[in-house]
C-alpha cells in the first residue's frame, strides 16, 4: 500500500462560473433557425396569423442571449467542475456499480439517434433484434426468467412495473382488495418501499438480526398473511450480505399466496453465480446503467430491465418484442397487460449499450466481472479494516459486492463523522462516497463498491485517501470538519435549501427573493 503521504496533491477546477442567466448580451445568438422558404411564407403568411391571438406569447421568455462559443465554454467549465467516474477512482459510490462504460458503445448508440420509435417494424429490424436477443439470450441465462421488458426508465420505474404486475395478477384473481401488503427489508433499496406505496400497497419493512445483519426468516414468517401481495427485496442487501435462506423466503411468500420480486439493481458480483429463478422469484430487474455498463449519465438516462416467469409474461407492458423465426415484431395485442408505464419502447440506446457490453464480455467475461468484483470487495476490506476509526458492522464475515462500513468509532473518538470525511475525501480527487439511504440503521455509514473496473492500485490509492483523512481526524479534526478545502467552491449555506424564503429552484425566484431581501 502507498504511504498515506502519497495521496494526490489535487485541487478541483475553480472557474467561479456565473449562472448562465447572467451571461451574454442582448442580441447575441447561439444558433440560427433556418429561414422559412419564401414559397411557404407566401402561401401561409405570418406565423402569428396562424395562431389564435390570445394564445400568442406576449412577453418573450427571459432566456440568456449568448453566442455559440460562450455557450460551449460555459458548459465545458461546468463539466470540468464535475468529477465524473472516468476521471477518478469512483467506487465510493456503492450500490451504484460505478463501472467503466466503454466508449465504443457511445459510437454504436449514436447509430440509432435518428430513429423514431413508431417507425414501421420492417425499418427497425436491427433495433428489435437487439432488444429481443438481449432479453432472450443474455438476460434469460443470467436470470433464468422467460420474458423481458425494457421500458422502465430506471431501477425504480422497474420496481413500478413489477408492482403493477403484482397488482394486475391479484386483480385478475379477484384478490386485490384483500392482498394489499408488500413486504421489503430495510437494507433493500428505498424504492422497494416507496414504489409499492405509490402503487397503492401498504408496505411492511423487516429489520435484520442485529448481530448477523441477516434479514430474519422468522420475521418474514410472522409478516406474511392472506393480505400479502408479495415481496420486493434485494439480495445481497446494501450490507453486501447474501441471504442464504432466500429460497425459503420465496417459498414462504408463495405459500401465503404472494408473488416474489427481486431487486437486482446490483447484480454485478453474482452474474452467472446465482440466479433469480433458482431462488424462486417470479420477477426481477437489472439496472442496465449499472451492471451492464451503460453510462450513469449524471443520473440517467437509464433502464431497469424487467424479467418475469412465463406465467407472468401476459402482464408485461405493451408492446412486447417477439420473433417468428424470420422477423421481429411488436406485440400490442395482450389483453392482460398492465399497459404503459413509459412511452414507446423504453431507453433503447441503453439496451443497445448493454447488449454490446455483454457481447464484449461473453460467458467468461461476465463471470470474470462478477468474480473480480467479489474479490476486489474482499481485498478492499483487508485495506479498510486497518484504518483507525473504521469498523465493519455485523458478524457475517463474507460480503459479496460491497460492505456497509461505519465511522461511528471515529465520530465518538474525534467528533469527525461520515459527512465530514465525505467532504474531505473530495480534496484528494476522489468522488464523495455513498453513505446509506435513510434511516441509517448502521451509524455513520459509508458503502464503497469496488467493482471490476478498478485495479489493485486503485483500491490501494482509495484506501490511502481514507487512511489520510482518518489520520487528520485524529490529529486535526477541525481540518476535516471544515472541509472541503480544495474544491471548486467553499462550504455552502445548507440552511437556505430548506427555507421557503431563501430557496430558489430558478433564477427568477432567486432574483425576486434577493431583491426582496435587499429592500428589507
Amino acid at each position, binding site marked *: 500500500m502507498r504511504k498515506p503521504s502519497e495521496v494526490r496533491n489535487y485541487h478541483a477546477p475553480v472557474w467561479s462560473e456565473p449562472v448562465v442567466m447572467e451571461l451574454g448580451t442582448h442580441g447575441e445568438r447561439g444558433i440560427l433557425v433556418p429561414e422559412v422558404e419564401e414559397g411557404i411564407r407566401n402561401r401561409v403568411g405570418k406565423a402569428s396569423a396562424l395562431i389564435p391571438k390570445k394564445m400568442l406569447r406576449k412577453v418573450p421568455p427571459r432566456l440568456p442571449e449568448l453566442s455559440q462559443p460562450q455557450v460551449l465554454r460555459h458548459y465545458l467549465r461546468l463539466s470540468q467542475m464535475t468529477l465524473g467516474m472516468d476521471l477518478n477512482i469512483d467506487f465510493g459510490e456503492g450500490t451504484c456499480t460505478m463501472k467503466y462504460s466503454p466508449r465504443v458503445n457511445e459510437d454504436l448508440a449514436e447509430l440509432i439517434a435518428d430513429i*423514431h420509435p413508431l417507425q414501421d417494424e420492417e425499418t427497425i429490424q436491427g433495433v428489435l433484434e437487439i432488444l429481443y436477443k438481449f432479453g432472450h439470450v443474455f438476460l434469460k441465462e443470467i436470470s433464468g426468467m422467460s420474458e423481458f421488458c425494457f421500458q422502465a426508465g430506471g431501477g425504480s420505474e422497474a420496481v413500478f412495473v413489477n408492482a403493477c404486475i403484482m397488482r394486475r395478477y391479484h386483480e385478475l384473481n379477484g384478490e386485490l382488495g384483500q392482498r394489499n401488503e408488500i413486504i421489503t427489508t430495510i437494507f433493500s433499496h428505498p424504492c422497494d418501499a416507496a414504489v409499492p406505496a405509490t402503487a397503492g400497497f401498504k408496505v411492511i419493512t423487516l429489520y435484520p438480526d442485529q448481530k448477523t445483519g441477516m434479514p430474519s426468516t422468522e420475521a418474514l414468517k410472522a409478516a406474511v398473511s392472506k393480505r400479502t401481495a408479495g415481496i420486493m427485496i434485494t439480495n445481497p442487501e446494501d450490507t453486501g450480505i447474501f441471504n442464504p435462506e432466500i429460497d425459503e423466503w420465496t417459498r414462504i411468500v408463495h405459500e401465503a399466496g404472494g408473488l416474489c420480486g427481486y431487486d437486482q439493481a446490483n447484480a454485478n458480483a453474482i452474474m452467472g453465480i446465482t440466479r433469480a429463478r433458482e431462488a424462486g422469484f417470479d420477477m426481477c430487474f437489472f439496472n442496465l446503467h449499472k451492471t451492464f455498463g451503460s453510462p450513469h449519465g*449524471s443520473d440517467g438516462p437509464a433502464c431497469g430491465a424487467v424479467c418475469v416467469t412465463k406465467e407472468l409474461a401476459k402482464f408485461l407492458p405493451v408492446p412486447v418484442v417477439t420473433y417468428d423465426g424470420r422477423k421481429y415484431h411488436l406485440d400490442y395485442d395482450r389483453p392482460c397487460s398492465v399497459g404503459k408505464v413509459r412511452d414507446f419502447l423504453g431507453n433503447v440506446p441503453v439496451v443497445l449499450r448493454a447488449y454490446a457490453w455483454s457481447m464484449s464480455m461473453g460467458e467468461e467475461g461476465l463471470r470474470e466481472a462478477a468474480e473480480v468484483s467479489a474479490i476486489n470487495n474482499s481485498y478492499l476490506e483487508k485495506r479498510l479494516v486497518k484504518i483507525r476509526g473504521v469498523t465493519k458492522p455485523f458478524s457475517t464475515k463474507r460480503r459479496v459486492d460491497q460492505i456497509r462500513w461505519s465511522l461511528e468509532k471515529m465520530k465518538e473518538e474525534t467528533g469527525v463523522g461520515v459527512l465530514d470525511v465525505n467532504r474531505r475525501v473530495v480534496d484528494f480527487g476522489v468522488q464523495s462516497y455513498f453513505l446509506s439511504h435513510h434511516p441509517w440503521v448502521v451509524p455513520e455509514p459509508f458503502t464503497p463498491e469496488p467493482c471490476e473496473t478498478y485495479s489493485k492500485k486503485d483500491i490501494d490509492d482509495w484506501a490511502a485517501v481514507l487512511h489520510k483523512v482518518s489520520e487528520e481526524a485524529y490529529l486535526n479534526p477541525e481540518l476535516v470538519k471544515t472541509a472541503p478545502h480544495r474544491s471548486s467552491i467553499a462550504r455552502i449555506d445548507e440552511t437556505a435549501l*430548506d427555507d421557503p424564503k431563501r430557496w430558489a429552484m430558478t433564477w427568477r425566484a432567486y432574483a425576486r427573493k434577493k431583491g426582496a431581501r435587499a429592500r428589507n
Partner: protein
Amino acid sequence: MTSERRVHPYIPNSVPEIKAELLKEIGVGSAEELYSQMIPQRLRLPRRMNLPEALPSELDLRRHVEKLLSKNISCKDYISFLGAGCWQHYVPAVCDEIARRAEFLSAYSGENYSDLGRFQAFFEFQSMIGELVGMEVACLSTYDWGAAAANAIRMGCRLNGRREVLVPATVSPARLSTIRNFAGPLAMPTHIDIRTVKYNRSRGLLDIKDLKHKLSSRTSAVYFENPSYLGVIESQGEEISYAAHEVGAEIIVGVDPISLGLLAPPSDYGADIVCGEVQPLGMHMNCGGGLAGFIASRDEEKYVAEYPTHLVSITTTQREGEYGFGYCRFDRTSYAARENAKDWVGTATALWSIVAANYLALMGPSGMREIGEAIAQKSHYAAELLSEIKGIRIVFPQFFKEFVVNFDRTGKSVARINKALLKKNIFGGKDLTEEYSELGASSLYSVTELHTMEDINKLAEAVKEVVR
C-alpha cells in the same frame, strides 16, 4: 476466450498474477472458494451460462453491432412525419458535444462539491424551463411526459385531498395508460378516478359543457395538454381554469416546450402545475430514448412539499459572491422517507436536463420564437398542400406542429397509405385508426423546422399518387 485471452480490457484485475495476489491477500484459493463462503451451493448455478461467443476485441464488436444496426432505416434516410410524443427536431452540434462529455456522461450521484458543475447545470435547466412556462419552481427532468403528468396529478390529489381527475379524451393513449397505472385500480383504497371529458369533434377543443357537467367538489384537478396529443392548440385555457378553480380544483397543463417561444405560457391562462416533454429541446429521438419529463409550479411551500423529484436550489457559500447548489427538501424524497415519501424519485434522465439547458442557452428568446414560427408556418403549409388532395381532410383547424389528416373519402386505410409511402421513402404520420376510431381513417402528421419546402412538396406529391 482462450486462456491467454482471459485478460479483458475492461477488467484490470483479470491479469492472472494480480488476481492470485488478491486471492492470497484475502485468504482464499479461488473465487469459487470465496463464493462458497457466501452463497449456499444449492443456490449456485451448477453450470456455465450458455451465451454466444464473446467479442472482446473492440473492432470485432463494432463490426458485429454495426452489421446488426445496418438493417435499420432512420429518419435521416427517409423523410419522416412521425411525432406523437417523440419528435424529430434539429440537434445543435454543441448539444451533442456536451452530451458526450465524459465528465457528465460518467458522473452519477456525487455530492455538491465534487459535482458542482452537474448541480449548476441542473439549476440552469430548471431556471430556463421556469422562464418558458412562466413558473418559479421547476424540477430536474424525470422519466417522460407521461410519468411527469402522473406525478403532477398525484401532487394535485395530495394538495386538496380529492381523488377524481378530469382529462380530455384527446390525451395521448400511452400517457393516459401511464396516468392510470399511477392512479391505481378501483379495488385499491388509494385509487384515483381518472375521468375523460369529451372533445369538440369539429375543432378538437375540450367540450366545456361536458367539463362543467363533470366538475364538482370531488374534482381534484383538470389536466389538459397544449398543444394536445392531436396537435390542437387549446385556446380555452382561461375558461377551463376558471371553471376548475371555482370548485377548488388544480389546473395541470402538459406542454411541448418547443412551442413556448411562440405560444403563451400556461401560467398566462391559469395553470397551477405545468408538466411536459423535454425531448424536443436538444435530444435526438433515440428510438424513444430521448424522452424526459418535467414538472413546474409556483414557488409556494405547499407545492414544493409535494414534488416527488429532485429540486435543485441555488444557495450561497462562505466566499462572498460565490454560488453553491443543493437539493431542496431532500426529506420529501423516497431516498429519505421510503414509503412515506411523495411517490418516488430514482435515476431518470438527468443528462437530458444538462443537454436541454445547453439547447435553451443556444436558442435564447429569439431562437425559441423563430423556431416556433417556423414550425407553425411549415406545418400549416403541409396541411394546406394535403388538404388540396382529393378525398383528404384536415380534421382540426387550430394546430401548432402536428395535425390530424383524414383519408376516409380516399377509401384507403392509413396502414395501406403508410405502406405505400414507405415505398417512396417516406414515413407517414402516426396511424390513429385504432386509438381514435371515431376519427375514421386518420393519421397524425408532425412537421418541424427540420422539414424543407421540398420535403413537404414531396410528401404532397407522394400522397397524391398513393390515394389516387
